[in-house]
Each structure stands twice: as C-alpha cells, then as structure tokens.
C-alpha cells in the first residue's frame, strides 16, 4: 500500500515547518485577526464596550463623506503618478537601450532614487519643497520664474501633484529596469526583418517594440498601481493629508481612523476595502493587458 505522503513529502513538510510557523504568526494570524476585528466596534477610548456589529463598519463607509474624499484623492494620485511613471520609464528605457558614450554611468546614476528609502525620499522632498529654504523656491526664484518664495505644499490645487512628483521620482528607476529588460529581450532579427519589410523607425516601434514590451508594461502598471494606492510615507511626512483634505488619501484616512481616532474596528474594515480594491485592480490589469500576450 502506498502512503498518501511519502518520505519526501514528509521531510519537506518538516523542513518547511519553522518558516510556516513564523508566517502563521506574523502574516496569517494578523490578517485573520484584523478581519475579525473589522466586525466589532472597537474604540480604544471605550475599551470595555466592543459590541459585535456585523458589517456595520463596512456599510458605514458608504455614508462617510471623508472616506469618499479620500477615495477621490487616491484615484487622482494613482492615475497621475502611474501614467507619469509609465511614460517617463518608457522614454528612459528607450534611451538606455541605445548605445552611446556614458550609458553605463547614466544607468548607475539613474538607480540612485531606487536605493533611497521611502522615508528618506519623503524627507528630502520636504526640504526641496520647503517654503523658507527649499531648493525648488531657490531655483525658480533665481531663474525669475517666481517673484517671491511659495508655500508649495500649502497650495490645495498643487499639493497632490507635488507629492505625485516625489513618488514618480522614486519609482521611475525600477519601472525603467523592468521595461529595459523587455526591450533587451527583443531579438534584433525582428528589427532587421521589419527594415527589409519596409517599416519606418516609428512603424518598427509600433509593430515590434511596443507589442514586445506588453508583459513589461503589465508588470509596471500592476506594481506601480499597487504601490500608489497604498502609498503612505510621503503623505505622512510631507502634508499629513493637508492642507485641508487636499492630500487626504485612503491610506492616510485609515491611519487617522485607526491610530488617531483609535477606532480599530472601522480602520480594519477600511484596510480590507483597500486590499480588495488593490486585488481587483491587479486582476483587471492582468486580464486586459495579459490578453493576447
């Protein structure tokens, strides 16, 4: 009689057990526990009264105006930054795919933002955007684009775009590398065939380069969208959601709800909404861009 699990399977299970235990403790348990919490009304200011409320935390969201503001801000931020990342990374990847002097140095320099931690990046941009001693003010003033120092992050109209700019700066290197990999994987034969077939530079780009980059693009879009809609550091360090609610994105809303209002139940519920949206978006991307690849 053959056992269901042979020697190999059982020893594999044994070796995997420690890491599984750790994962259970630090990932699976918190995920399930926060799901559990999301069904209670928990406010740490009233620690003794935590009634079970079924889906109230979820349904309440739909009537919460600030929640919808945060959704709108998140959409703006994500659409602006992801499209900017895709376009800039494409241009930079095309540039770095050419053979020219100094290409290696340029590629190395280009990687620098990627190596900077998110918080350090946020602090750096806080300095750059600073109304008193910021480099942005300094440069624009010396070049006569502005006649007085501006409070950049205090401008409701501009804040979200300035934060997006800082985010794009940090994300472009990785996106560039992902796109460059797809560019490099295009066989040169295809370009030669297209040249013999009479395709112009632009037609070769459209008919050979772009289709071959689709998988790379898909990866960049999914990854960067997920990063953008969940992004927190820049909002925390640069604006704390302000001025007013101008940069009050979903991740910031969750933070405020959970750790400032100490409302753990509804915070957990919103986290779940964000996770589901992230999942749904990446699924849609894979379905639409992944077709015919």
């Amino acid at each position, binding site marked *: 009689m053959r056992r269901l699990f042979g020697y190999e399977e059982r020893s594999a299970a044994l070796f995997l057990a420690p890491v599984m235990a750790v994962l259970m403790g630090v990932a699976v348990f918190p995920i399930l526990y926060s799901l559990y919490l999301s069904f209670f009304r928990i406010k740490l200011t009233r620690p003794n009264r935590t009634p079970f409320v079924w889906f109230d935390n979820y349904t309440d969201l739909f009537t919460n105006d600030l929640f919808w503001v945060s959704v709108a801000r998140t959409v703006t931020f994500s659409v602006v930054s992801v499209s900017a990342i895709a376009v800039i990374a494409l241009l930079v990847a095309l540039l770095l795919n050419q053979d020219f002097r100094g290409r290696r140095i340029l590629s190395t320099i280009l990687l620098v933002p990627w190596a900077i931690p998110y918080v350090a990046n946020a602090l750096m941009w806080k300095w750059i955007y600073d109304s008193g001693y910021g480099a942005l003010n300094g440069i624009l003033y010396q070049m006569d684009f502005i006649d007085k120092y501006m409070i950049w992050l205090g401008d409701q109209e501009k804040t979200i775009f300035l934060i997006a700019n800082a985010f794009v700066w940090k994300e472009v290197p990785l996106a560039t590398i992902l796109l460059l990999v797809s560019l490099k994987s295009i066989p040169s034969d*295809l370009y*030669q*065939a297209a*040249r*013999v*077939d*009479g395709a112009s530079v632009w037609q070769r780009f459209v008919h*050979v380069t772009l*289709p071959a980059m689709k998988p790379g693009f898909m990866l960049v879009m999914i990854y960067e969208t997920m990063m953008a809609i969940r992004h927190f550091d820049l909002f925390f360090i640069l604006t704390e959601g302000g001025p007013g609610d101008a940069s009050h994105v979903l991740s910031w809303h969750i933070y405020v709800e959970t750790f400032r209002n100490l409302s753990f139940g509804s915070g957990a519920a919103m986290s779940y909404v964000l996770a589901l949206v992230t999942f749904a978006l990446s699924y849609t991307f894979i379905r639409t861009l992944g077709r*015919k690849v």
Partner: protein
Amino acid sequence: MARIRFENVEKKYANGFHAVKDLNLDIQDKEFLVLLGPSGCGKSTTLNMIAGLEEVSDGRLMFDDMLVNYTPPHKRDVAMVFQSYALYPHKTVYDNIAFGLQMRKAPRDEIDRRVRDAAQKLEIAHLLDRRPSQLSGGQRQRVALGRAMVREPSVFLMDEPLSNLDAALRISMRAEIKELHQAMQTTFVYVTHDQAEALTLADRIVVMRDGVVQQVGSPDDIYERPQNTFVASFLGNPPINYIDGTIEVTDSSTARFVRGDLALTLTEATARKLADCNGREVRLGIRAEDVDETAQGGEGSVIRGKVNSVLPVGSDQFLGFDFYGEELFFRVGKDLSHRLGDDVALSVDLNRLHVFDKDSGKTLIW
C-alpha cells in the same frame, strides 16, 4: 531582374574585425547562389550587405548597374528569410505574411489575394489565424518563406533558413526551396554552412573563409576540382583524406606519388601538370568514396593498411584505416566484411586524385 555585383567590397566593424576582404563577385539574374563556409567566415555579413542591413565599408555594391551602397533595405526590392524566422510574435500568420505589403501600402484586396495565394502554395492556408507560437518549426519556416514570397522581390535572400529544422524536414524543405526558385524565377542568395544543402541547391557555390572567397564554381567544380585544401576538406562526408608525400617525375607524362611503401602512378593528365614538380613535397587528397575494395586497378593504384574501425552507415560503411599513424576513412560497400586489425588493400581511382602544395595548400593540378 536583378544582377548583383560586388566590386572590391570590404566590411570592417568598428571594433576592428575585418569580416569581408576584397570581395569581387558577380551574381547573375535568376541564379541560385549559395554562400558556403564555417561560422565567422563572412557569409552572413555578405548577405546582410546585399540586404542593406550592413553598410559596405569600402568598394562598390551594384544592383544591375546602380550603386546601392547607401540604399536602405526597403528600397532594394529584396526579401529575406532569417535563420530564426524572425516572425512577429504578436501578429497572426496572415499579418506576418501581409506586413511587408501593408508597409508598402498595397491595396487591401491585392494583399489578401497574394497572402492567400502564397499560403495555398506553402500549404499553410489553414494556419492563417494562428500566431507563430502555435506553430511547429516547419510551419514557421513556411510562414517566413511566405512573407518573403508575397513581396515578389527581385532578390530573395536566405540566411541558414533550414538550420533550425530536424533532419528529415530539412531534406524535404530543400526540395521545396529548389521548386520555389524555379517557380519564382528570381535571384536567390542563400547562406549555409551545410555542404549537402549547398550541393543540392546551388547553381554556383561561393566558399568563404575568414572573409576571403576561396573558390567560386558550380557544385561539381567545387567538389571535383577544389582549388585548395580548405575547400576540399569542407565538402565531402567523411572528409577527404590527406597523405603527405613526394612527387617523382620520370618524364613529361609519367609521375608517381610516393610515401613509404605507397607508390601511386599518376594519370598522364595529372603527370603533365606536375612535370616540373620532381621531388616536390605535396599533400595528396583522396575522397573517401574514390576507392575500390576489389583492388583491381593494378599495383600502381593500391593502398594498404590495417583496419582500425568499421562504421556501418546503412547504405554502406566507413572503413577507418591506419596509414603511417594517420587515420584515413574510406567509404566501401556494405557487403564487404572487415574485422578490426585485418590487412586490407584498396585500389584508388587515379583519375580522381587531388594534389595540393604542402605549404600553401593550393591545388597543383586543376
């Protein structure tokens, strides 16, 4: 109509590599020309220069009587089949074949007619909606041919088009390419390192080595009258055997090739060409099949040795033969039973001997 002429053409790369050296070659209209040589010999570079994918560094490349050194590929009226097929992976078979015509803004119904016509001829009409990834190697090959065919080019270029196919398919595709050439009545330039392909397909073969043309001639010329040891070795399976020795001239029409116990009486025609070579060190070439195991040719034609290996190849067998420490291979009938260590005597076909200068490797008789 297209005649291609290379006049003192050179190809040097920026890194200093000299890929093609002083190439002079006339390719006739409607000719099937094969560029043959080992990898790195410059044959693909030559093809790419015809296509316009590589620039000519020096010299003149002419199509008919027009200089095309600086003409871009799509204005040369050439079509090309690549070793990798280079099919556009995201396009259907139909669009792959149609692409060249679409780029030339041919009318839609004209494109459709030509694509379906080519697909019919290549027996891939049922595959038009598929993508290259859904096709077998042989089918991809046909699509690549179709893409070149529909353009109805005046020059058809092929860069090792069969080398990615398995052996059986390669042989049947060879026949189809030959038929295609006859049907299309255009100039074909075909690059390969496979001697059998070259011998079956070509009207003329150009053998190249290190960027230098070694010999240009009909398959028969190249095989029967190689101009040097490189050409002689490159064609033939098993490769030609070489024996180093000395020429002994008796009079203007009699001469012998001598090496130890071996003394081969050369034919009168050969002897006349070697009349002033008395005592010269030469390299004798004997093709594997140019022996007769019955040893009936008389004493002046017999070569003796010990059997070293017997390799049956179905239709006949290769006999490995120890001769002064060198292994010679001969092709003999399979009825003959030889055992390892047997002494054998084979008579050499004296009309088909090749005599080369030992140092330069150049032929002394053709």
